[in-house]
């Protein structure tokens, strides 16, 4: 992977792990909030939660918070600041094709989301237990 896009993806992944904002909002914030809210509503299925275990309800919801944090906080802020500070121009002049930014951001966003989701589930599993997957094919169909 020594193409322009490959080098950019590697550099961006490295930079992401150094960014406190990303680490907080994509990795820490959904997990901590899930633990707090899940704990507050308990694990007994109630009619208010459609007879589902409320903790499970919130585990599922906070997966979407991960996706939202990556898609709405991390990527747009990142790209806007790159554009404003002239980083995109700098890279374009150094020979990186414009599409390589889009590809790098997409790949970094997907990897970040996947890792954060796995982390969230890994924390949720021992605390609230995870229900078995029904209709697994609907997950990719919905996303």
């Amino acid at each position, binding site marked *: 992977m020594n193409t322009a896009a490959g080098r950019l993806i590697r*550099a961006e992944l490295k*930079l992401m792990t*150094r960014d406190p904002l990303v680490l907080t909002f994509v990795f820490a914030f959904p997990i901590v909030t899930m633990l707090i809210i899940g704990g507050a509503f308990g694990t007994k299925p109630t009619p208010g939660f459609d007879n589902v275990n409320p903790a499970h309800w919130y585990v599922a919801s906070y997966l979407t918070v991960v996706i939202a944090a990556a898609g709405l906080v991390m990527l747009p802020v990142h790209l806007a600041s790159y554009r404003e*500070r002239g*980083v995109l*121009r700098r890279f374009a*002049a*150094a*020979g990186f094709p414009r599409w390589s930014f889009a590809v790098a951001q997409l790949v970094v966003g997907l990897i970040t989301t996947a890792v954060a989701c796995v982390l969230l589930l890994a924390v949720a599993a021992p605390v609230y237990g995870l229900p078995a997957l029904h209709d697994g094919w609907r997950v990719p169909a919905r996303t």
Partner: protein
Amino acid sequence: MDKPQVVTVRGLRKAYGNRVVVDGLDLDVPTGEIVGLIGANGAGKTTTVECIQGLRRPDGGTILVLGYDPATQAAELRPLLGSQLQDSALPDRLRVAEAIELIRTPRARAGAELLEQFGLAQRRRSAFGSLSGGERQRLFLVLALLNRPRLVILDELTQGLDPAARRNVWAAVRQLHDEGTTVLLVTHEMDEAEELCGRVVVMRDGRVLDAGAPADLVDRHAGTATIRFSMPDAPAPLLDQVRQLDGVHEVERAGARVTVRGARPVIAHVGAALVRWGPVPADLSVHVPTLEDALLGLLDGAEADEHVAEHRELIGGRR
């Protein structure tokens, strides 16, 4: 043309909305030369070099860089260019050594050597955000030279550098020139253009006002030298003698202070006259016109011409 051209621009036009920034610009950069693009802020210099690099699409005219059209063949052209852009940055958390790894191509020279040459060897593991302004500029220069480019474009190269760092960077540019690399230098620092460029192109309002070797421009637009000295009760015979010297335009006296203006050879004649007369004044000073004077003269001239043109239009309009 005796030398093949690295850059050929003909009739370049670029407007942002209604504001025409580059207006029918012609520019040639011959192989192996350092060509300076100079002019005041807003003259269209940066837009011109951005079009040359394919970072902006011109509205009109043709550009050929190393045989490629930057607007449509940027992918082929970019690996042959090294550039240092005005107002650009790297991600704050990217480290110096990582930036080099990111930008380098297989034909790159040794990054460590370049870092050493520009005094950045100690900063290899520092994040871009923690570098000082001068260190950032030097890093950009390292990145511009990294991939052995055939044309190097340097925009406001020494902005924010201290005098010692500036000398360092100038030495590096001269070395590039010695190695046969062609350089297009954008600057509003006249001493920089005078120091480095074999040829300068003066721009104003998106047009070329004049072009030539710095010394020729100085001769054309700021030919006079100014000599000043103090002589209490300056004797009239001496002043008369000076007035009659070849090439003297004017002699001014304000109290003890005497100012002589004239063509450059006047410097020697006035010196000789003073020596003949007696003790040479201790505060004798000579101001020889620089490229900056030439540029100011040139811009003033252009402005004056414009006023005349406007005036004529007004008169024409009334008729």
